[in-house]
């Protein structure tokens, strides 16, 4: 299969994930659209060095996240970042208006606002959790061992649970 055909196949399978992820890494809709394009460029470019060293899914996620994080860091250099860790946001998430009282668009907006405040390393974990990757898949994308991922994953799930109003 040629690189272009391979790219088309991957873009078809993971295009929606890439577009969602771009929204998670960039709050401005126009810039998010540019970021989507940049991720696709890197995906197309990196296909020449893909030799099944990991699963196709992990590969695409790695590229998308790395481009996303690079983008966030470049933007942070221009505008002072207002990042917070998962624990801090977990407290904020529970304090807000009850999740059930909001409609889906409002919940999505609130979710994105929280995601945009996360530090890049925490943001990766939360986005991968939202994309429903397993702990093993997340470890593969992040490049950490399963134990280190389990700790981060636990914090990410607690944040999402706090958002859903699930904290007892």
């Amino acid at each position, binding site marked *: 299969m040629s690189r272009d055909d391979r790219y088309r196949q991957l873009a078809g399978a993971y295009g929606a994930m890439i*577009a969602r992820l771009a929204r998670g890494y960039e709050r401005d809709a126009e810039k998010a659209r540019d970021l989507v394009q940049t991720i696709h460029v890197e995906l197309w470019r990196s296909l020449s060095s893909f030799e099944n060293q990991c699963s196709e899914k992990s590969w695409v996620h790695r590229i998308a996240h790395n481009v996303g*994080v690079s983008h966030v860091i470049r933007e942070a250099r221009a505008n002072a970042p207002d990042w917070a860790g998962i624990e801090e946001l977990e407290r904020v998430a529970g304090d807000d208006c009850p999740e059930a009282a909001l409609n889906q668009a409002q919940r*999505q907006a609130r979710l994105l606002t929280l995601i945009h405040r996360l530090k890049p390393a925490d943001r*990766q974990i939360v986005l991968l959790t939202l994309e429903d990757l397993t702990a093993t898949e997340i470890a593969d994308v992040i490049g950490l061992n399963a134990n280190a991922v389990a700790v981060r994953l636990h914090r990410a799930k607690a944040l*999402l649970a706090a958002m859903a109003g699930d904290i007892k």
Partner: protein
Amino acid sequence: MTNPKEDWMSITTLDAGGFDPAALARKAKSFDRVIRWRNFREYAASGFVIALFGYWATRASGTAESIALALVALGALVAAIQIMRLGTPTRPRAELSADAALHDWRGELERQAKLLEGVRLNYLAPFCPGFVLLALAPLIDGTSSLAVGVASAVLMIALLGSVLWFVDRLNLRAAAQLRATIEGLK
């Protein structure tokens, strides 16, 4: 209770279809061109200063002036070497694991912050001997009266000192912003 995963998955994605590979190839080429062009500009600016001051050094009327102009050209050469050695940007490889890429980014930002913090020593200091001697050259070569020579030397050194101080402050401020970004990545 609502499920944030469901909310996340139902976010509208208008750009989900992917792109034409030919368009992506053009864009990839254009990215590479931007990086090459930026590096070229850095070296061309240094080359221009070296050529100009080197040429003036051969045409100078006095020995001190000639040495001063040659020292400025030499300062530009040292600064260009420092840019090449310390400032050439590295681009994290997209296919690295996410944690390694983040680590790479931190390393790159650390490098750039150190570079900005060291501007005084690496880029400004090499020019100082040449410019100071250039300010004193009319006095040493005896091409101006003592009063005029001293006055213009003081003025030139004060002006040079102010410019260097200002450039240094700007770079230190940029370095502080980078340090804040690096903190956020920990």
